[in-house]
């Protein structure tokens, strides 16, 4: 007699559990992989600024150091400010395109673990 209702309830519970499990896994995966891509616009703008400025600062410092060492002021500094600017733009491009902060991104199939493979995949989805 009471077999049928119980089965229904259990089936429903099973479905709900399945749904909850799927709900749980998908957002957490997405969130963990895109944790840095999300966030408000001000935070994004701030990060772009920091990435640009820090690369230019490092370039300038290297140029200044070379000039100091080789006594060629100001030529190395002038060159390395521009190179630093290029590095800054590469940093920003990588950040925005979802490649993360990896210098020298490689082809997807050369990544050794499945985890980094997932990250590259999702980065590509970001571009498209």
């Amino acid at each position, binding site marked *: 007699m009471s077999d049928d209702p119980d089965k229904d309830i259990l089936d429903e519970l099973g479905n709900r559990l399945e749904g909850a499990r799927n709900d749980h896994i998908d957002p957490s995966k997405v969130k*963990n992989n895109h944790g840095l891509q999300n966030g408000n616009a001000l935070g994004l703008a701030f990060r772009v600024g920091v990435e640009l400025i820090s690369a230019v600062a490092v370039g300038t410092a290297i140029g200044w150091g070379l000039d100091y060492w080789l006594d060629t002021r100001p030529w190395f500094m002038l060159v390395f400010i521009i*190179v630093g600017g290029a590095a*800054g733009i590469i*940093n920003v491009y990588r950040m925005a395109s979802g490649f993360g902060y990896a*210098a020298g991104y490689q082809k997807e199939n050369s990544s050794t673990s499945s985890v980094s493979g997932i990250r590259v995949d999702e980065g590509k989805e970001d571009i498209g």
Partner: protein
Amino acid sequence: MRGKKTLAEGHSPLAQFEIKTLIPLQVGDINVSITNSSVFMIATVLAISLFLVMGMRRSALVPGRWQSMVELSYIFIANLIKDTVGSEGRPYFPFIFTVFMFVLFGNLFGMLPYTFTFTSHIVVTFTMALFVFLGVTLIAIAKHKIRFFTFFMPPGVPMYMAPILIPIEIISYLSRPISLSVRLFANMLAGHTLMKVFAGFIFALGVFGIAPWAFIVALTGLEIVIAFLQAYVFTILTCLYLNDALHLH
């Protein structure tokens, strides 16, 4: 000079960042005085130890509130490492967990009245970022030997591009500790300064001080969120750098 100093002590929104020497110490030529900054670092380490040790003291099968918080922070970092680095990141868990807890508790300590926020000093954050950077670079060199330097030359790039591209990649790599440290330091500095500035408006505006007061209440909530967020960002970037070092991708 003297007048400027008393003004800064009383009213400047930047007075909170002043380093005060509490116990002067000198070892050789190096000044190792106990300052308010180092006192709060010691307090942070003690608080973390207390939080973890006392939370796990009973280590019940069904955790209480405190034990849940400890387990939550452990699982949070463990999942972060699993998702960003993979199973190869397991040996580095203690370091990353320490970095996260130190930055998080340092940020949260700064939210208490009359405290000092050591993460609002670029010296502190840059030293941490520098150790992360050096450590990650050494791990990469130890693991990949000479192949590490192919990191600066992406495959498929024509040879004549190398003289331009390699300096750019090296600068991009060297800018990592700066962007890592500046992000944490600037967020903490800006938030705490903003709070002091608006707090100064409350009494200056008399009855209308209710407006900046309400703003401060909202800002305090926001600052606590930022304290968590910046600790998280610092940690996840450490993980991403570690991932690059281990997988060279």
